[in-house]
C-alpha cells in the first residue's frame, strides 16, 4: 500500500515535456509543519500558492460563503494557482467557520466541472481533522494533502504539560498513526494507493439534505435527507461559541465510552444493569422496565423515529401463536470461540438449542466433541480466515453462514489478538498459540457473484441438508447484491447493521463504518420482492436488537429472523466493559485467561433463555394488540409503520419514506420465505460417486473406482467427503477410498476433502482444487505422453488449498494465483505458482519446484515452504514482512525435502521431479526455505509433524 502524494500541476501523460518534472512528492498526505512550510516556499512559477479563507461573517450565511469560496477557488485556479490552500486558521470570535469537508467537496466539484482540478491541488489547513476518518473524508472528497495544525499544536501543548521534550517525535508518531488508520480505511474498500482513494467518495451521507449534498458532496449517496445549511450553521455556531469561552474546560467527550451528559450510548449502565437484574431475578416487570429504558430513549436510531400502527382490532394473547414457534426465528449472532471464552460460547449454544433457536459458531472453528450434542452450534460460519473449517465441521450444521462482511466493521475480517490465542484456541484454528490471528478482509475465493455461487455450491454439495446463509452488511446497493445472492442459490440472507461489534472491533470501524440496518433491510426486502425472489430467501437482520419493539419493527420492514449479539452476552454476565481485546474481561465472558474463566465466569444458559422467553412474551403482547395471530403476517407490512416527526430540527428534516415503501408483489412471489433455493446443477457426478462408494465407506472397506470427468463437474468429491464426515466422523474413512478421474475437472475439485479420500486426476483442474481440504490426498498430472514441460504449464487454477487444514496435494504442473492462502496443515508439492502464494499461512508445508509469482509468504505466521529458485530471483518475489529465507543446509531438512519430491515423483511421475532427484546434491543449493520469522529453523519439522491437540475444556 502506498500513501505517496504527488503535488504539482498534472500534465498530459502522453506528452513528454519538462513540465512533468515540476511535481513534489510526500510520503503521506498528512503534512507536518515543516512539510507545509516547504510547500509554500517552493518556486512560485510552478507552485504558486494562494490561501482561501474558510471563515465568514454570520450575516453572509454558510451556503453563500461556500459558493463564494468556490468562485474564488475557480478564479485562482484559472489564473495559475497550483496550491489552493483552504484554511480555517484565521478564525476569530466574530467569524464563523465553513466545515472543511464541505468546502473541500464543493471546491472539488467546481474544479472538476471546470476542468481545472488537474491544474491545482487542494491543500487543507484545518483545525478540524484529528482522527483517521476525518482525514479520509477530506481525501475522499478531493483534498490533495492536509495540514492538521490544531492537532500538532495540541500535541505540542500536551508535551509541554508532560515535560516531554521530543515534541517532533510525538508529531511524527501522530502522523504515523493517522497514516496507519488511512491504510486501514483504504484496505476496507480494497484500495491500495491514496491516489486511487482521493476523490473516490467512498461514503454514504446519512442525514444531509439534498441541497447540501448537491453543493458540497455531489455524487455521494444520500437516502433520507436531513440537515440543511441553516442547521449545520447552527451547529458550527455552538462550536464557535464554546471555542471562545476560554474559562470552560474542554468537554470530557463520551463518544467512545459512556460519559454522563455526553453522547447517548444504547448499552449504557442503566440498560445493562436493568437487563441483568431482570434476568437474574427472572422478573418480567423488571424486563419491561428494561424495554422502557430502551424504547423510550432519546432518539438514537432510525427505528426510534417509527411508530407501529396496525389496521386490525386487537385480539387476546391466547389467540397469538405460542412462544415455541417464535424461538426458531431467533439466532445468536456470530461470535467466535476465541473472542468468547469456551464456556460462554458453549452456554450460548446450549441456550439456543434448548430454546429451539440457533447459535452461531463464529469463525473460529468448534471443538468436535460438541458436535451432535446440545452444545453444538447449529449455525457454522465460513469466514475469510476459514479457521477450523473442515468437512466434519461443515456437516455438523443446520445452517452454513458465509460471512461476506460484518456490520460493525465492514471490509475487515475478525481479529483475535495474540493474548487470546491460547493453546486450545490455537488447536481449534490450526494456528500457533500467542500469534495474533487477523482474518483477511476478503474471501480469497470470492471475487464475484459467480465465485460466491461456487462457494454456495461447494457447501450444498458437502452438506445438502444445510441452509446456506450469506451475511451482508447494510450499505447502499445491498439490494442488488442480495438479488445476486438469491440467484446464486443462497437460502438465507442476513443483513447486518452498524451497531454491535465487541470491544475488540477497531474503534474507527465501530464509529464510522457501516450503516443502520433499517436502510439495508428495507432495500434488500424491497428489491427481493420486486425481483420475484423474496419467497426463496429467509431474511434475517442483526445489529443492536434489544426489545420486542425492535423485533416487530424489523419484521414490518421485511425480516423474518433475528440475530442477537450483545444482549445474550450481557445475559451471560458481560458488563459491556469494551476491553475484549485485552483478554482481561472481568466477567470471564470474553477472555481465555484461565483464572478469570474458572473463578469469575458465572454465565448460565438459563439467563439467555429467560431473555428470549421474556422477549417472545413481549412480542406476543404486541401481536395481540396488532390483531395478528401469526408472526408471518407481520413480515414486510411496512404500511403499518409510520414516521414520527422527530424531536430535534434535524430529525424533522429527515425523509424516511424510502424505508417505508411497500413494493407490489409479482405473481408467484410473496412477502415471506416460502421455499428452499436448490441449485440448478444437481452435481450428478457427486451423486454417482456417493452411490458407488457409500456402502464401502459405511462398512469401512477399501474402495476403488474410475470416472470420466468434465469441466462442468464442479466440487467433485465434496459429496463423498460430506458422506464420510457424517457417517464416520472427524478421522475420515477407515479404509482408503481411491478414486481416479480422467479429463478436465471443473471448479473445486476435491473441495473440503475428508481424510481417507484419495483422488487422482489425469488431466487438469480449474480453480479451488483442495480448497478447505482436511485430509486425504489429491494428485493431478497430465496424461501420459503430453509433450509440454510440466514445470512450465499450468495444471491447477487459482486459489487452490485455500483454507486447507490437512491432507496432501501433488500436482505435476503449475498452480495459479493465491496458492495455499490460509493453509494451516496441508502438504503440497507443485511445480510453479502464480502471485500471492502461501499468504496468511499458519501451518503446513508447500514445495514449489519452479517459479513463484510475487508477494510470496505475505502474512505467513506458521508452516514453511521450499522453493526451487533455479535462477536466484526468488528474493525479489518474497514478501519478507513476516518471513525470512534460508538455504536448505541441514541434512534433516535436505532429507525431508528429498522425501517429498520422491513422493511427488511417485504420485505424478513428473519428469521435472525426476530431473531434480537425479542430481539432487547439485540442485539442493538452488532451494530456498521460507519460514515465519517467529519460528526457529530447528523447530519447523517438529511443529509440522506433531498433531495439534484438541482438548478444549468442555463446560
Amino acid at each position, binding site marked *: 500500500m502506498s500513501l505517496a502524494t504527488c503535488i504539482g500541476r498534472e500534465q498530459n501523460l502522453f506528452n513528454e515535456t519538462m513540465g512533468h518534472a515540476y511535481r513534489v512528492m510526500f510520503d503521506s498526505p498528512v503534512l507536518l509543519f515543516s512539510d507545509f512550510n516547504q510547500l509554500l516556499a517552493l518556486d512560485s512559477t510552478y507552485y504558486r500558492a494562494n490561501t482561501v479563507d474558510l471563515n465568514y461573517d454570520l450575516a453572509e450565511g454558510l451556503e453563500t460563503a461556500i459558493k463564494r469560496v468556490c468562485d474564488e477557488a475557480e478564479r485562482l485556479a484559472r489564473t495559475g494557482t497550483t496550491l489552493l490552500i483552504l484554511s480555517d486558521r484565521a478564525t476569530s470570535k466574530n467569524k464563523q467557520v465553513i466545515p472543511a469537508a464541505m468546502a473541500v467537496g464543493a471546491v472539488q466539484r467546481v474544479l472538476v466541472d471546470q476542468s481545472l482540478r488537474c491544474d491545482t491541488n487542494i491543500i487543507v489547513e484545518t483545525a478540524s481533522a484529528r482522527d483517521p476518518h476525518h482525514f479520509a473524508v477530506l481525501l475522499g472528497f478531493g483534498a490533495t494533502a492536509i495540514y492538521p495544525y490544531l492537532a500538532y499544536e495540541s500535541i505540542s501543548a500536551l508535551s509541554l504539560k508532560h515535560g516531554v521534550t521530543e515534541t517532533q517525535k510525538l508529531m511524527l508518531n501522530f502522523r504515523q498513526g493517522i497514516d496507519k488508520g488511512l491504510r486501514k480505511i483504504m484496505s476496507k474498500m480494497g484500495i491500495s494507493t491514496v491516489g486511487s482513494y482521493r476523490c473516490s467518495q467512498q461514503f454514504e451521507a446519512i442525514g444531509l439534505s439534498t441541497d447540501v449534498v448537491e453543493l458540497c458532496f455531489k455524487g455521494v449517496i444520500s437516502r433520507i435527507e436531513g440537515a440543511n445549511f441553516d442547521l449545520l450553521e447552527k451547529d458550527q455556531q455552538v462550536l464557535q461559541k464554546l471555542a471562545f469561552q476560554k474559562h470552560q474546560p474542554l468537554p470530557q467527550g463520551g463518544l467512545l*465510552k459512556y460519559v454522563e451528559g455526553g453522547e447517548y450510548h444504547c448499552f*449504557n449502565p*442503566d440498560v445493562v444493569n436493568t437487563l441483568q437484574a431482570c434476568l437474574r431475578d427472572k422478573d418480567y416487570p423488571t424486563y419491561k422496565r428494561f424495554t422502557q429504558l430502551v424504547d423510550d430513549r432519546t432518539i438514537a436510531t432510525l427505528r426510534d423515529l417509527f411508530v407501529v400502527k396496525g389496521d386490525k382490532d386487537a385480539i387476546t394473547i391466547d389467540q397469538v401463536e405460542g412462544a415455541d414457534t417464535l424461538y426458531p426465528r431467533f439466532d445468536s449472532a456470530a461470535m467466535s470461540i476465541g473472542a468468547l471464552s469456551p464456556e460462554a460460547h458453549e452456554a450460548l449454544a446450549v441456550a439456543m438449542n434448548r430454546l429451539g433457536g440457533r447459535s452461531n459458531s463464529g469463525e473460529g472453528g468448534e471443538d468436535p466433541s460438541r458436535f451432535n450434542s446440545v452444545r453444538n452450534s447449529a449455525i457454522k460460519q465460513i469466514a475469510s480466515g476459514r479457521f477450523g473449517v473442515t468437512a466434519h465441521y461443515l456437516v455438523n450444521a443446520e445452517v452454513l453462514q458465509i460471512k461476506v462482511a460484518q456490520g460493525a466493521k465492514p471490509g475487515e475480517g475478525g481479529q483475535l489478538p495474540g493474548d487470546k490465542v491460547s493453546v486450545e484456541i490455537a488447536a481449534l484454528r490450526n494456528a500457533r498459540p500467542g500469534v495474533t490471528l487477523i482474518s483477511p478482509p476478503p474471501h480469497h475465493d470470492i471475487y464475484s457473484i459467480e465465485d460466491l455461487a461456487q462457494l454456495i455450491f461447494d457447501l450444498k454439495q458437502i452438506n445438502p441438508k444445510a441452509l446456506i446463509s450469506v451475511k451482508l452488511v447494510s450499505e447502499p446497493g445491498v439490494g442488488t447484491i442480495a438479488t445476486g445472492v438469491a440467484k446464486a442459490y443462497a437460502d438465507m440472507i442476513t443483513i447486518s447493521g452498524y451497531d454491535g461489534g465487541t470491544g475488540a472491533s477497531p474503534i474507527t470501524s465501530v464509529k464510522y463504518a457501516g450503516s443502520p440496518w433499517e436502510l439495508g433491510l428495507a432495500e434488500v426486502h424491497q428489491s427481493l420482492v420486486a425481483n420475484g425472489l423474496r419467497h426463496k430467501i429467509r431474511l434475517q437482520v442483526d445489529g443492536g436488537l434489544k426489545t420486542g419493539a425492535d423485533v416487530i419493527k424489523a419484521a414490518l420492514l421485511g425480516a423474518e429472523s433475528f440475530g442477537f449479539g450483545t444482549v445474550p452476552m450481557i445475559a451471560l454476565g458481560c*458488563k*459491556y466493559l*469494551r476491553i475484549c481485546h485485552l483478554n482481561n474481561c*472481568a466477567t470471564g465472558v470474553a477472555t481465555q485467561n484461565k483464572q*478469570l474463566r474458572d473463578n469469575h465466569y458465572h454465565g448460565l444458559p438459563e439467563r439467555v433463555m429467560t431473555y428470549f422467553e421474556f422477549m417472545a412474551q413481549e412480542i406476543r403482547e404486541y401481536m395481540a394488540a396488532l390483531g395478528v395471530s401469526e408472526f408471518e403476517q407481520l413480515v414486510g407490512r411496512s404500511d403499518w409503520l409510520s414516521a414520527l416527526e422527530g424531536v430535534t430540527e434535524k430529525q424533522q428534516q429527515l425523509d424516511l419514506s424510502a424505508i417505508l415503501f411497500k413494493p407490489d408483489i409479482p405473481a408467484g412471489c410473496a412477502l415471506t420465505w416460502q421455499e428452499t433455493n436448490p441449485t440448478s446443477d444437481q452435481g450428478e457426478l457427486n451423486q454417482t460417486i456417493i452411490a458407488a462408494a457409500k456402502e464401502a465407506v459405511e462398512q469401512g472397506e477399501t474402495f476403488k473406482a474410475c470416472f470420466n470427468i468434465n469441466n462442468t463437474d464442479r466440487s467433485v468429491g465434496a459429496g463423498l467427503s460430506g458422506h464420510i464426515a457424517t457417517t464416520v466422523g472427524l478421522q475420515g474413512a477407515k479404509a482408503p477410498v481411491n478414486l481416479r478421474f480422467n479429463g478436465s475437472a471443473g471448479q473445486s475439485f476435491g473441495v473440503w476433502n475428508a481424510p481417507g479420500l484419495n483422488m487422482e486426476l489425469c488431466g487438469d483442474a480449474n480453480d479451488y482444487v483442495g480448497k478447505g481440504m482436511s485430509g486425504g490426498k489429491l494428485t493431478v498430472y497430465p496424461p501420459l505422453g503430453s509433450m509440454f514441460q510440466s514445470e512450465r504449464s499450468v495444471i491447477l487454477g487459482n486459489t487452490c488449498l485455500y483454507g486447507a487444514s490437512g491432507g496432501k496435494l501433488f500436482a505435476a504442473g503449475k498452480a495459479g494465483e493465491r496458492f495455499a492462502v490460509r493453509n494451516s496443515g496441508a502438504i503440497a508439492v507443485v511445480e510453479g505458482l502464480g502471485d500471492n502464494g502461501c499468504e496468511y499461512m499458519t501451518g503446513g508445508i508447500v514445495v514449489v519446484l519452479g517459479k513463484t509469482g510475487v508477494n510470496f509468504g505475505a502474512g505467513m505466521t506458521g508452516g514453511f515452504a521450499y522453493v526451487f529458485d533455479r535462477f536466484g530471483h526468488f528474493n525479489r518475489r518474497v514478501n519478507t514482512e513476516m518471513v525470512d529465507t534460508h538455504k536448505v543446509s541441514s541434512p534433516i531438512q535436505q532429507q525431508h525435502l528429498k522425501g517429498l519430491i520422491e513422493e511427488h515423483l511417485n504420485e505424478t511421475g513428473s519428469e521435472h521431479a525426476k530431473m531434480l532427484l537425479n542430481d539432487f546434491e547439485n540442485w539442493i543449493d538452488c532451494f530456498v526455505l521460507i519460514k515465519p520469522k517467529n519460528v526457529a529453523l530447528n523447530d519447523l519439522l517438529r511443529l509440522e509433524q506433531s498433531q495439534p491437540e484438541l482438548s478444549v475444556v468442555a463446560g
Partner: protein
Amino acid sequence: MSNDFQFIEVGRKDPTKHAAAKRATQFIEIYQPFAQPQVSEQADRCLDCGNPYCEWKCPLHNYIPNWLKLAQQGRILEAAELVHETNTLPEICGRVCPQDRLCEGACTLNDEFGAVTIGNVEKYITDTAIAQGWRPDMSKVTARSERVAIIGAGPAGLGCADILARNGVKTVVYDKNPQIGGLLTYGIPAFKLDKSVMATRREVLEGMGIDFKLNVTVGQDIGFDALLEQYDAVFLGMGTYTAMQAGLDNEDAQGVYQALPYLIGNTHHIMGTESTESPYLSLEGKKVVVLGGGDTAMDCVRTAVRQGAKEVICAYRRDEENMPGSRREVQNAREEGVQFLFNRQPTSIKIEAGVVTGIECIETQLGEPDDSGRRRPQPIEGSEQLIDADAIIIAFGFQPSPAKWFADYDIELDQWGRVVAPKVADNPFQTSNPKVFAGGDMVRGSDLVVTAIAEGRDAALGILNSFEG
C-alpha cells in the same frame, strides 16, 4: 506502564487505620493517607470500563477512570484539575461519601475482586495537589457584571459559588456560623473530616475570588430584601435542620437528645467555639443508646465513644443488611467498641423523676418491601425488652426547616416544607421567585453531601442561564 491484570494480581487495599484504642479517645481522622506508590498500585486496578459504572452512579458524575489513570501515572496536578472539573469539594467527598453505596459499590470489580479505592485516591489527589500549591486556574476567566448572593456555606452553597466564580460572576456567601462548610464542619465529626480540611478549602475558594460573610444570619443581621436589591440573583442552600421526632413518650425528658445539636455542640467544643443553639454535651461515663441506623447515628455512637461513654449501643429497627448508612462506618464503629442491636424498634422511654433510665424496645422481623423497596419492620408480639440507658440520642433524620420569611418573597414550598425548585426546567433550580434559586437538602430533603454539591453546581448553571435571558 499499566498492567491489564493488576486487578487480579493486586487486591484492594484500603489505607491503614489508626488503632481502635487510639481512635476511641481522639478526634483524629482514622484513615492514614495513601502514599504515591499505593495510589499507583491501587489506581492501576481500574479496568477503564466502556461503561464506567462509578461515574454513572456518582451524583456528580466525576470522571473517575480518567483521574485514576492520571493518579496512577503520578500526574497529580492534572488529576486535581480534572477532579475539580466536576467537584467543588473532592477532598471532602473522598472522606465522607458513602463510596460503598456509590462509586465503589457500582465498580465492576466490586462484586468479585474488590472495588478500586476511589475515595481514598480522590482524597490523595486533592490533598497532595493543594499541598503542592495547586490552585484553580482563574486566569482565563473574564469578569461578568452580575453579582450573586448565596445563603448557606454548606456543600450546596459552595458548589454554586464555585461554578459562578469560574464563570466570572462576583459571588458572596453568607453563613450564620463562624466557619464555612455548614454541616460538613459542624455536623460531621472530626474523626471523619478533620476541621483543618475545610479551613484549607476556604483559602482555596477565597483565592478564587469568592467572598464569605460569616456570622451573618440573613433575616436577622441583614434583610433578604437587601440581598435581592444588591444582587442579580440569590441562591438558597440552607439545608434541613428540623430533627425528626421519635414520637415516643417522655421524649422531652432529661437525658434524651437530638443527634444534630449533640454533634454540632461537640464540634464547636473541639474548635474552641461555642454555640448557643447547640451547647456542648459530654457523655463521659454514661451508658448511651443511639436510635437510628444512618450515617448520623454512626457519627453519634462514635462521638460518644470518644467522649468516654461507658457503653454505647446502637438500636435499629431493621437488620444490618437493610441499614441505610455506609457499611464501612458500621465496621469502624464496631471496631471502636460500639454494640449493635438490630431488629429493635423503640416503644417508650423509661424515666425516673424526669430523668432517663432506659428504653423499651420490641423485636421486629422484616415484612414485605415498601414503595422504596426496603422491607418494612414488623413488631413481634411479646418480645418487648428494656435497655438501661443514661442517655438516649435520637438520630432519625431531618426535616426541612424553611425560614419564615420565604413566604414574603414568593418562595413556594411543597407540602413537606421543601422549597420548590425543579431540576428539569428552563433555568434549573429556579424557585417561584425568578431571582431566587435553591438547591441541596432544602429542596430535595436531607440527602448526601455529594448530591447537595451537585445541585448547587447545577443551580449555578441555572443562574447563568437566567442571566443569558
